[in-house]
């Protein structure tokens, strides 16, 4: 039954311990920042799955756990039906070959002293692929032409500072594809790219997905690009998934009050809005993950909250219809 998923996370948690003062050590009190607090979802093969949320909601931490850059505190990570939550070094190396990442900041994710050639060659050397230099060179040129960097020969000898933001993000994409992975985790890949080239990069990523049979986990705070780019969206709030479904379900028929608020807050390039003060349905800002509110964790900001939202146990993610999930007890009333 699970075979439809390439990756599955089950009740994944990441709690970061907070430094304690002396009295807390004596009393054996423990405090945690619950960055990710029980997240479950599955990504189907060939799918583009988006994790959306405000900063601090745990979307990047989730991605890092899937990349195995963070050890999970609890929960399971299943890749191609194998449990990879705890693996030894050798298996980890194999796993990393299958799962690659594109980072947000193309200016920081490349060693400034590496030429494009070195950037692209490194994964091949680490994984001891292609012993022959010429073979590696072929592979690198191939990788560059896939991301439409032409002519590849010329770009191989360039340093990152000689490239524009869009070009760098293309090189970062080429680097992540050098090992022909199955899953690519993308952490806000276009948020630092200019608007005019942003769509071009997304378009290229979509093409590459079809061409190379990839699966993407797309992390973003931008609902508008997610609508155009992804197949399914999970909205995160304070370490939990609050709503999950297709872009149409999430954006046109959103159920959770948080998702509704997020959508209401997005600006749209339409005339006649200048003199209207837009209604922002939720107040305040995201609370600290060290101090998660009792009951439904959204209740302090929720315009529909009732005392039952505080006293009842936290709402679970339940299916509304057709794979549209929501974690709110009162979503039918609002």
């Amino acid at each position, binding site marked *: 039954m699970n075979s439809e998923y390439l990756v599955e996370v089950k009740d994944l948690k990441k709690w970061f311990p907070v430094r304690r003062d002396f009295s807390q050590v004596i009393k054996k009190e423990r405090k945690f920042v619950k960055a990710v607090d029980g997240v479950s979802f599955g990504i189907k093969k060939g799918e583009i799955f988006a994790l959306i949320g*405000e*900063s601090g909601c745990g979307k990047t931490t989730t991605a890092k756990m899937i990349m195995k850059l963070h050890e999970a505190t609890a929960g399971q990570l299943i890749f191609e039906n194998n449990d990879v939550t705890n693996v030894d070094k050798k298996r980890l190396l194999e796993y990393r070959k299958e799962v690659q990442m594109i980072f947000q900041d193309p200016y920081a994710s490349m060693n400034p002293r590496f030429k494009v050639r070195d950037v692209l060659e490194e994964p091949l050397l680490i994984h001891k692929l292609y012993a022959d230099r010429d073979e590696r060179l072929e592979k690198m040129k191939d990788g560059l032409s896939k991301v439409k960097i032409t002519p590849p020969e010329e770009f191989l000898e360039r340093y990152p500072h000689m490239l*524009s*933001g*869009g070009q760098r993000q293309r090189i970062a994409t080429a680097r992540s594809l050098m090992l022909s992975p199955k899953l690519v985790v993308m952490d806000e890949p276009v948020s630092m790219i*200019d*608007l*005019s*080239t*942003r*769509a*071009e990069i*997304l*378009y290229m990523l979509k093409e590459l997905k079809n061409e190379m049979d990839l699966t993407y986990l797309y992390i973003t*705070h*931008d*609902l*508008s*690009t997610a*609508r*155009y780019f992804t197949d399914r969206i999970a909205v995160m709030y304070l370490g939990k998934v609050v709503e999950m479904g297709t872009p*149409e379900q999430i*954006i*046109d028929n959103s159920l959770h009050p948080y998702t509704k*608020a*997020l*959508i*209401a*807050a*997005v*600006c*749209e*390039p*339409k*005339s*006649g*809005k*200048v*003199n209207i*003060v*837009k209604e*922002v349905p*939720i107040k305040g*800002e*995201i609370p600290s993950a060290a101090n998660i509110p009792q009951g439904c964790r959204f209740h302090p900001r929720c315009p529909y909250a009732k005392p039952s939202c505080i006293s009842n146990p936290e709402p679970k993610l339940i299916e509304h219809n057709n794979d549209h999930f929501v974690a709110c007890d009162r979503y039918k009333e609002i």
Partner: protein
Amino acid sequence: MNMEKVLEVKNLKMYYFTSKGVVKAVDDISFELKKGETLGLVGESGCGKTTTGFSLLKMPSPPGKIVGGEILINGEDIMPLSENEMRKSVRWQKIAMVFQGAMNCLTPVYTIERQMMETLQLHKPMSKEEARETMKKYLGYVGLSEDILKRYPHELSGGMKQRVTIAMALFLEPEVIICDEPTTALDVVVQAQIINLLKDLKEKLKLSFIFITHDLATEAEVSDRIAVMYAGKIVEVGTNQQIYGEQGPAHPYTQKLLGATPKLHENVKELAFIPGTPPDLLEPPTGCRFHPRCPVAMEKCKKEEPILNEIEPNHFAACWRCLNEQ
């Protein structure tokens, strides 16, 4: 609407003199700002919009220099003023700026009170008590409680820090406030809150804003008029209705940029993009600077540079096509 001009910029030129050559970051731009109006300055990174903002304060970052032009505030040219006069009587008194990334423009080692006090006391001789009263008044305007005065910037959230910087820009009741991407680093919900705050303040205190951003969608919500910049030039100026209305913008660059802006409530399968990259300003293209990326470029566009022409009342575009169609 009151048609009084608060700010008038004429032929402003700001060049960076680098070792590789002269980068014409702001190249001969003119615009005006009326009282109580918000003028949006949009463009991609590197088009000169932030540089324009800093030039208005006569604070070009080195190796930049203002090469020419006039900046008139209430009809008075500030170009001939010395650095000392600028600091004493213009910056923050007449023209203030809210910088990009509020998290980085507050000193981490001072309390909010101390930083605010500094701004106030340097410009106006006033006692600590008076200053504290002023602070409280303006914190009230931006929706913050006065107990944040005792706190340090790291104890505040991004949205609160942005509110503090806005309050600090308001202190001396300037004529013009330049907001340089005030909402870019914030989450959508907080972004909407800040935009509402700015609209509210504009209404209440009759302020005039220059709102700089790369995001056409945000601009649609805040600006009465929009100026679009490309490669150091203003390519189109129009009212909100002219740019975002049914008819759509006139300049091909604005049209394309608007097409590339994702719209949440429209189910578009393919987003448009502009092929190519913005030009290197060390060697800008001849003729119209947009011609290498323009889908409707003509022979003339490669040779002659178009100037801003009024194509309909209050709507200006620098494009040969727009002129021909007239």
